[in-house]
């Protein structure tokens, strides 16, 4: 049935030619396209009609001689104009000033709005910058418990955020997002879908909805949950399933094992002195990671005379950021994890924990147990989301035994919403749906978000079984693998485009406030699901407000409370209530859950993890995230099979692990293996990960997408990664035992932004133990300890360089020169970075990319080492490749050297110092000799070797920060200390009677994004500023100080707090 037949009146309405349509069309185009007129480009009905009508509208003109001449003239002119418009980037548009200026809108001045990003790990509270109605940058909300610090006094609050939230901005403007409603690939209006859905619903109503199944992601939105309940009440036989590829099923199952009921665990790292992580990456992944990282690092921060640190033990099956920060790290196989936890539980006196332990580790266990027991009530044992349920149960029992419950560990009700409030395990939930589909009991399947055709367990054969369903409807941001197999596809509104609500990891609800009208007329889940109620076209805004108006907490002056909640970004008093639960006495005797996988022959164990950058695959079309180097491998644009050096040597039968990779020119060609598990095989390139346990292969999920967009899919010859979901089975979601790995002899190009992880004995990241640091403090007069007080206060010299037995390099004294230095009388900007605090989460990189309009260059250009990130996070491994003593993260922005080596060599004065000490790039003046980059010892300068910026895609133009130049080809660029933010603060201060800019008024993008406050920026002439205080710390040092570059960015050394009892083991 054609739309014309259903809704003839709609079809007749003449749609005016809109630039949006033209733009949308252009956005779809992959290369150069030619069109005859803008109408054709926008594919308006008139043009279609014109093409198809036998006698075009002007045909009558031919009879009239005067009219004919005029007609020809107009035709000629319009053809010429059509050609002309092809010469400019965009069709001409008229600029109309505001007739009625929006509230508080001052053209040129950014506004910030609170909102929140829904995410399976819990919402992140956000402040979104809006320039003239366009969201242009995303930062954390200080008032939100997930990303900020609401417990502090209002003027003390800070916030950080994660890479997914910041990069969601690019997803909003992604030109590959689905833009149209389609039925079997044909474009349809929403009314057509509604008609179709209503017809189907009418049929289902008779059966009380039997045969109607909803499949959603984890729902953390109270209003959507309420709406689902409303639908299920009206259609009691309908089913609602939830599936999330990267869920925390194991935690739920573990809690049920320990307590007999599912609970949500809240960890208070701000109160913990000893932390044991059992395969948990609590600092950089999973629910509450931002909060965990901040609390943990605050407890660890050694500044302002404080010399106490917490201590972190990490037992893990694959290296993570948390493992990188560990004071003691133990790398074990997944199959050994439970044994380790049991053995430790025995030593800690947990009842019923019988232990069988691999010999040789007992001494470590005793020492760890002793240390944990010494901090009773001030320790945390945390099990990772991907650890087996038994380990979760053991962790709960150990926390109880250590007296941590109620102190550092508290419990609440689960945060997700379930039908009938009965928590269901998601994999079982999906299994039920698959069973129903297979049995033909599903007539209509409504998939809201997610991407089950891509990420469902391999044994479910979801895609094949889906096709047994008569009517399949999909709401999604992209026309992806799942939409491909659904008749109806409805474009989803991005969270920045629609009203909604969502819960953070502690249960606090945020109202999602849209920043922009839907770019492609997408619909939010709330609006879409209304189609299945009696008010199918109710707006999301109304649904949301109606829901909240009915909430008990919003009684009284609703309008006031609503405005407050929207403004603050949090709904007050919605955090989940603490709840007391007791560990079952007999929990250990219960049958183990989901741990009974039969080994299937091979000798390898597989560890599945969500990808650090593209997560479960949902960000595969996000160029910022694809190009973001992964924290420990620095690979981008690919996933890889991570193996230990010894495993690599055995796999490829070589003497040295360096021999496994080949080079094609400078292209790093990784050898490809076939990984087989239960009859399924994937081809994967191998990458050596120091610290990986032997015989364990880590596979990151989220790659190998086939239908996603121009960024994430790659080409047939060069796909973007491989799909690890093919090896993932419902009973082995996170670890698989008995996999087989075989070398194939083929190679696969991997690209990364750092290929060398050894400091080569150089004094780059200084590290020392807390004990040594304390000794140095008490011995402060010693000449060998601290040398040369630089002008920034103390250029303290670390006591032990990263290099073994290396002499620490001294910065030449400032008066070792014949020239008098420049007197910085006004402001003197500087930055300090605490390498102890950096957890390597990469937020700063993405924040910098978003703030400073940094382009994405693509895999081929990264292979040529031309990535454009102004800020990078270097990672160095210390010690042996087999089992490194530690990983050190070092964020490297421009150092803004006072004696900048880049400046004297530029022939055209395109890089110059200003009176406040920043080293500035004058893009307009730059001719691109690249001499400055050659002469930069920190290699922080980035060159536009080609035209990397996308000057044509209209949606991306909306995204850019209008305060930062968009650089063209042939120009050098680099970190500016966010000079636009400096200028804004200075302008504000000058308006207020020329007062000084206050400390903390200027927050650089990287500083604002950092969840652990590892970066501070400020005025070095103000002795009370945080940066001055940090630079006076004895841990402060300048990178490559001996070159006398006098960097304004300095580092605080990396402190570790190892257990003396475990030293040297």
């Amino acid at each position, binding site marked *: 049935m054609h739309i014309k037949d259903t809704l003839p009146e709609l079809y007749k309405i003449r749609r005016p030619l809109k630039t949006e349509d033209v733009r949308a069309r252009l956005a779809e185009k992959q290369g150069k396209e030619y069109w005859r007129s803008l109408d054709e480009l926008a594919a308006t009905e008139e043009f279609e009609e014109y093409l198809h009508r036998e006698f075009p509208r002007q045909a009558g003109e031919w009879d009239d001689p005067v009219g004919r001449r005029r007609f020809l003239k107009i035709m000629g002119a319009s053809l010429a104009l059509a050609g002309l418009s092809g010469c400019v980037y965009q069709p001409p548009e008229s600029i109309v000033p505001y007739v009625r200026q929006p509230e508080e809108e001052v053209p040129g001045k950014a506004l910030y709005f609170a909102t929140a990003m829904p995410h399976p790990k819990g919402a992140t509270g956000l402040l979104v910058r809006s320039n003239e109605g366009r969201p242009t940058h995303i930062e954390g909300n200080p008032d939100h418990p997930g990303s900020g610090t609401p417990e502090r006094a209002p003027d003390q609050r800070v916030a950080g955020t994660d890479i997914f939230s910041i990069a969601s901005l690019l997803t909003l403007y992604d030109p590959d997002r689905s833009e149209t409603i389609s039925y079997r690939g044909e474009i349809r209006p929403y009314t057509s879908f509604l008609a179709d859905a209503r017809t189907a619903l009418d049929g289902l109503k008779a059966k009380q909805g039997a045969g109607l199944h909803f499949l959603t992601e984890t729902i953390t939105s109270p209003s959507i949950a309420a709406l689902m309940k409303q639908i299920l009440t009206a259609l009691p036989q309908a089913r609602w399933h939830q599936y999330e590829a990267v869920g925390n099923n194991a935690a739920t199952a573990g809690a049920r094992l320990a307590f007999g009921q599912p609970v949500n665990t809240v960890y208070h790292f701000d109160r913990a002195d000893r932390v044991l992580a059992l395969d948990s990456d609590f600092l950089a992944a999973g629910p509450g990671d931002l909060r965990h990282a901040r609390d943990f690092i605050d407890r660890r921060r050694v500044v302002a005379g404080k010399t106490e640190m917490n201590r972190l033990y990490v037992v893990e099956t694959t290296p993570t950021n948390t493992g990188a920060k560990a004071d003691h790290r133990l790398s074990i196989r997944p199959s050994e994890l439970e044994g380790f936890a049991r053995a430790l539980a025995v030593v800690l006196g947990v009842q019923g924990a019988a232990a069988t332990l691999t010999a040789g580790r007992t001494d470590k266990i005793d020492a760890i147990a002793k240390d944990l027991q010494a901090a009773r009530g001030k320790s945390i044992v945390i099990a990772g989301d991907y650890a087996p349920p038994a380990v979760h149960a053991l962790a709960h029992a150990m926390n109880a035994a250590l007296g941590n419950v109620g102190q550092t560990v508290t419990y609440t009700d689960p945060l997700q919403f379930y039908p009938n409030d009965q928590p269901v395990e998601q994999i079982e939930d999906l299994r039920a749906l698959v069973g129903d589909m297979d049995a033909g009991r599903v007539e209509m399947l409504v998939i809201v978000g997610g991407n089950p055709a891509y990420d469902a367990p391999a044994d479910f054969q979801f895609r094949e079984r889906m096709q047994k369903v008569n009517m399949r409807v999909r709401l999604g941001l992209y026309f992806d693998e799942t939409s491909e197999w659904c008749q109806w596809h409805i474009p989803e509104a991005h969270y920045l485009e629609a009203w909604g609500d969502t819960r953070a990891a502690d249960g606090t609800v945020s109202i999602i406030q849209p920043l922009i009208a839907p770019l492609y007329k997408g619909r939010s889940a709330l609006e879409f699901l209304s189609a299945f109620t009696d008010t199918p076209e109710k707006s999301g805004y109304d649904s949301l407000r109606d829901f909240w108006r009915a909430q008990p907490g919003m009684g009284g002056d609703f309008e006031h409370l609503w405005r407050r909640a929207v403004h603050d970004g949090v709904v007050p008093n919605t955090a989940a209530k603490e709840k007391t639960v007791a560990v079952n006495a007999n929990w250990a005797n219960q049958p183990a859950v989901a741990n009974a996988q039969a080994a299937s022959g091979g000798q390898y164990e597989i560890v599945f993890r969500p990808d650090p950058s593209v997560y479960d695959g949902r960000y595969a079309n996000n160029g910022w995230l694809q190009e973001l180097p992964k924290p420990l491998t620095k690979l981008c644009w690919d996933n890889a099979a991570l193996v230990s050096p010894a495993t690599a040597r055995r796999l490829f039968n070589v003497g040295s692990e360096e021999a496994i990779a080949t*080079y094609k*020119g*400078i292209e790093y060609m990784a050898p490809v293996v076939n990984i087989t598990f239960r009859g399924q095989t994937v081809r994967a390139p191998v990458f050596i990960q120091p610290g990986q346990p032997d015989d364990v292969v880590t596979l990151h999920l989220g790659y190998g997408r086939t239908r996603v967009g121009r960024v994430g899919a790659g080409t047939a010859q060069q796909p973007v990664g491989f799909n690890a979901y093919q090896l993932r089975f419902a009973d082995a979601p996170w670890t698989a035992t008995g996999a087989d790995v075989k070398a194939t002899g083929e190679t696969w190009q991997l690209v990364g932004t*750092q*290929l*060398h*992880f*050894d*400091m*080569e*004995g*150089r004094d*780059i990241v200084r590290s020392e133990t807390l004990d040594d640091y304390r000794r140095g403090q008490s011995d402060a007069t010693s000449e060998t300890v601290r040398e040369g007080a630089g002008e920034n206060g103390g250029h303290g010299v670390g006591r032990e360089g990263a290099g073994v037995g*290396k002499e620490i390099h001294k910065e030449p004294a400032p008066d070792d020169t014949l020239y008098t230095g420049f007197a910085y009388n006004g402001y003197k900007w500087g930055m300090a970075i605490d390498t102890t605090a950096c957890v390597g989460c990469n937020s700063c990189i993405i924040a910098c990319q978003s703030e400073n309009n940094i382009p994405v260059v693509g895999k081929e*250009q990264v292979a*040529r*080492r*031309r990535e454009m990130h102004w800020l*990078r996070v*270097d*990672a*160095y491994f210390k010690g042996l490749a087999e089992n490194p003593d530690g990983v050190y993260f*070092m964020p*490297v922005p421009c150092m803004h050297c006072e004696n900048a*080596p880049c400046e*004297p*060599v*530029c*022939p*055209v*004065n395109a890089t110059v110092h200003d009176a406040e000490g920043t080293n500035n790039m004058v893009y307009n*003046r*730059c*001719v*691109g*000799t*690249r*001499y400055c*980059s*050659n*002469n930069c*010892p*920190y*290699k922080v*300068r*980035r*060159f*536009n*070797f*080609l*035209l990397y910026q996308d000057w044509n895609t209209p949606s991306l133009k909306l995204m850019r920060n209008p305060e930062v130049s968009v650089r063209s*080809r*042939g*120009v*050098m660029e680099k970190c500016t200390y966010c000079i636009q933010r400096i200028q804004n603060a200075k302008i504000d201060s000058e308006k207020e009677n020329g007062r000084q800019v206050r400390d903390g008024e200027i927050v650089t993008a990287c500083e604002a994004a950092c969840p652990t406050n590892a970066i501070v920026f400020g005025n070095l002439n103000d002795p009370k500023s945080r940066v001055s205080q940090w630079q006076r710390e004895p841990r402060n040092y300048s*990178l*490559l100080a001996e*070159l006398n570059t006098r960097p304004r960015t300095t580092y605080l050394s990396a402190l570790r707090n190892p257990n003396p009892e475990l030293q040297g083991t």
Partner: protein
Amino acid sequence: MATIDHPDDESGVHVTPFPVIEPGHTFDSVTDKISALTLQRKTPIAWFIGFFLSFMLANVLMLSLTYLVLTGIGIWGNNIPVGWAFDIINFVWWIGIGHAGTLISAILLLLRQSWRTSINRFAEAMTLFAVSCAGIYPIFHTGRPWLAIYWLFPYPNTMNIWPNFRSPLMWDVFAVSTYASVSALFWFVGLIPDFATLRDRAKSKPFQIVYGILSLGWRGSARHWARYEKLYLLLAALATPLVLSVHTIVSFDFAVGLVPGWHATIFPPYFVAGAIYAGFAMVLTLTIPLRKFYGLEDFITMRHLRNAAKIMLATGLIVAYGYMMEAFTAWYSASEYEGFMMKNRIWAGPYWWAYWLLILCNVLIPQILWIKRMRHNTTVLFLVSLVVGAGMWLERFVIIVTSLHRDFLPSSWAMYRPTIFDFSTFFGTMGLFVMLLLLFIRFLPVISIFEMRTILPQAVVKEEEEAA
């Protein structure tokens, strides 16, 4: 003035086996023979083939540069950290080659080395063409050549923006442009009397007109000769310091930077010696086939080749000393970065082969020239000169690429690989060079006619008689 009876170095016998001009020539025969190359002799078919091939290569250069300007530096292999690669290697290489010309024409003139006479015109032309090729790189290696081409010059402008006079690249602009203009002037002034000869001997009208214009009304009067001699000497004096200054300044591009492997005080003399080394190698590479094809053995004798070989041997040893001192300084400085740079260059790095090829080409193989028999064998000389040319190119590769690819922070270390466009640009400039050279051979006297006449025995006798 010019004497040909120096005792032969090796034999000590008062007989000259290799005069600067073979006996039996008269003023007429010299003039006839050289001017015939441009005026009478039929252009050999080989010239057309050579011209066609080099013209094609020059077109490859044109296409490469066009594509470069339209697309960006990204078509080359340069990256971060290796911001400079083939572009600057080739620039330094071509500039170095140019040095022999100025050295021969200016310094040897002032030192009254009469043997320079038969090769100076050719060497000067080579200088000019090499500098033209070199000049392409600094302009086109920039990201925005359309601006670089004039922003690097200190021109007065309403914005009051000047170039950065502290930048060695700025000094390069002055050094290279001065060098190019003085060389061109010197070459042209030296050509004026010969233009007049060609004008007088040309049979066809167009040649008469063109050469007539170029000869600037030269009539050979005593006054003309007096002014000419004065000017030529002055220009020689002007050009002399340039021989030293240009490559000194080019070496500052590196020495002023703080990259380990660049930041060395030895660079200026080491670069100048290297330039003369490369320049003489190029002179030999071009002269040996030229004298053979055009039968100029009478004028460009073994004496010239032998002397050039000796200069190569001497400058080659200076260059070898430079390599030694680089290694010594790296060790003696006790700087870990310098030490690592040398280690990386010689054995630990991925480009170790480039270093050892360089040592082979520039230090080991040329030592064969100590043997007289080899020095007098034109084939050996030709091959050695080719090897030295390649070696000097490798030297710049080692200095630029291997120093940059692993500098201070290991996180930024990377590899460099040239692309097809790096090669097409390089070979393109070679094509341009050969094409210009072939045009020069065809239309201008490759050997200075009037200066050759002054070294004929007849001229000497007359002068001696006058002196007596």
